[in-house]
């Protein structure tokens, strides 16, 4: 095994980890505000199809990503209206959003299935990434750096700002937050829309970084991995970062275990199952902890109805 290959593997891992990291970061904020949105997969598909449509029409990657974020955010408003304003069941509504996103994207994407999407390259001049060592730092598409920045931003927002404190308060104890005058529903709407936008950008990663095309069900379940990751990371942004890269590592390592005997320390099926085994293990560890506080936001998934 040479350095060249190690770097290629690292670049692949970053690419695989980025969409699940972005989607999971958005969902983390949503869940911190006390809302469980299972529609991540559907919103990612909407983001992906809008990205393909805008990229093929205008050729502008940035515009495509912005449109993807807006479209997915708009779709999350449907979820928001049903669960927050009408107090519908969040689990059922979230699943409905996934089905809606799958169907909408399949229908909307039909004219775009026969075209290749120009992929997005590293924002740095190619000379910087020519040397394999520097490629680890400069050789990634911009969304990889964006995801890393967002980890810091979300951590800073939740833990170091007043607004972040309000979001957490709403998620931990909606009645208290309401009684001291915070707009619980309003805060949750904003969180849901942020989650939608992040899922949309996560969806944009697929055609722009991974598979340069549109096809039905393009994200093939990675939105669900993002959902699992939030729990895996115990609702902490930096643990989420580690988790996403760990999941990305497993996805890529599975392929190397299959294609290269040097990597076949364990059967490839083991690598394929490991992310899920790890999630189960972490869930067990979390529930074994007896520190008096669990990591899940206390109001997660409970509808809030203001009384008086």
């Amino acid at each position, binding site marked *: 095994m040479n350095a060249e290959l190690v770097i290629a593997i690292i670049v692949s891992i970053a690419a695989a980890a980025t969409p699940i990291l972005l989607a999971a970061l958005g969902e983390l904020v949503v869940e911190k505000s006390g809302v469980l949105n299972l529609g991540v997969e559907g919103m990612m598909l909407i983001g992906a199809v809008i990205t393909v449509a805008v990229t093929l029409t205008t050729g502008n990657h940035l515009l495509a990503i912005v449109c993807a974020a807006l479209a997915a955010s708009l779709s999350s408003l449907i979820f928001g209206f049903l669960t927050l304003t009408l107090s519908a069941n969040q689990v059922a509504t979230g699943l409905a959003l996934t089905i809606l996103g799958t169907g909408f994207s399949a229908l909307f994407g039909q004219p775009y299935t026969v075209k290749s999407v120009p992929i997005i390259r590293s924002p740095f001049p190619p000379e910087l990434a020519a040397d394999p060592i520097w490629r680890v730092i400069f050789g990634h598409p911009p969304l990889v750096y964006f995801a890393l920045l967002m980890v810091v931003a979300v951590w800073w927002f939740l833990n170091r700002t007043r607004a972040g404190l309000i979001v957490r308060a709403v998620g931990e104890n909606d009645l208290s937050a309401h009684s001291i005058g915070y707009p619980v529903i309003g805060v949750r709407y904003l969180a849901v829309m942020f989650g939608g936008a992040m899922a949309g950008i996560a969806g944009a990663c697929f055609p722009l970084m991974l598979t340069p*095309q549109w096809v039905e069900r393009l994200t093939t379940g990675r939105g669900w991995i993002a959902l699992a990751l939030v729990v895996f990371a115990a609702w902490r942004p930096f643990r989420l970062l580690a988790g996403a890269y760990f999941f990305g590592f497993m996805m890529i390592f599975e392929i*190397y275990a299959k294609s290269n005997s040097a990597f076949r320390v364990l059967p490839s099926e083991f690598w394929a199952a490991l992310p899920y085994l790890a999630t189960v293990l972490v869930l067990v560890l979390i529930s074994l902890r007896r520190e008096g506080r669990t990591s899940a936001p206390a109001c997660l998934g409970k509808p809030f109805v203001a009384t008086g």
Partner: protein
Amino acid sequence: MTSFNRRTMIKIGGAAAALPLLGSRAFAQEKLKVGFVLVGSPDDNGWNFGHDRGRKEMLEAIGEDKVETTVVTNVAEGPDSERVFRELAQQGHKLIYGTSFGFGDSMLKVAKQFPDVKFEWATGNVSAPNLSLYNAKFHEGRAVCGTVAGLMTKSNKLAYVGSIPIPEVRMGINAFAIAARKVNPNATVKVVYIDSWFDPAKEAEAARALIDQGIDVIAQHTDGPVIPQIAEERKIVGVFGQGSDMSAFAPTTHLTSIIDRWGPHYTKSVQSVLDGTWTESSVWDGIASGEVEIGPYNANVPADVVAAAEKVKADIASGALHPFAGPIKDNTGTERVAAGDVIDDGEYWAVDWYAEGVEA
């Protein structure tokens, strides 16, 4: 054409449950209703696209005044597909095609419950009085691709991205490897299974991982054009289209393709139901009868390589060359097929080894 996905099917199912009361004779006077169950989307530019094109050619040939078709897309393989087949049968479809290997168990069950409905299972291996099998000898096309790959590779490292390790996929790999090594004894074929017919992100990751390991020609047995796209992105020596021509996705690296032509079979089989002459059968044709077609060669393929590939194609068509003609050694060095012998169509399904040069 009416197009449904599985969810609308379930909804319609409720309404359709009342229909059988009308009796099948009501339908017999109407157009023949033919159902197609697809594992993916006809927009995949590959396997499902090929079947849908065959359906359209059949409609064209027989006429929409005599036949009407229902296409159910994105049906998962396995037990869940059973209700889709039952639904179609209950709605009065007299001929139902299941176009993936994994639909078999469900089809066998439903076929038993609807003895007057004809079923046809693509790439299947167990038939019943009202369930026929139809398949194409894709491995003949693989031998042509293998010849091109063996002659074109610079690194002598070829790869094959497989979907699921079923006999058809394994034998495609063997045919490819045997043909490649016949023209280039130093060539090796690395195999990666993605454990799905459809997972574009994983296909892309597999293709990139293989290219990063020095592979310069990739063949694939999955349902979409992602791998040609990645090959084009990385500008490797070559890649092959599977199911249909994928050169639009890889203008410079798409060397040639295996094109599935299901139209003639669909036309023949629908016509036989219309004529009342349909019988249980097992169709397995290849290059000779036109079920398997080799697409146009890329301008980057040198003339002598095209000539060598065309010779393999012509010899397979004429019967002068068998893709699995001995001597064949497996990848542990054991001789599996003696010189002068071949793996015949019956033995094909039982092969559980890979040919020499395959790293799987």
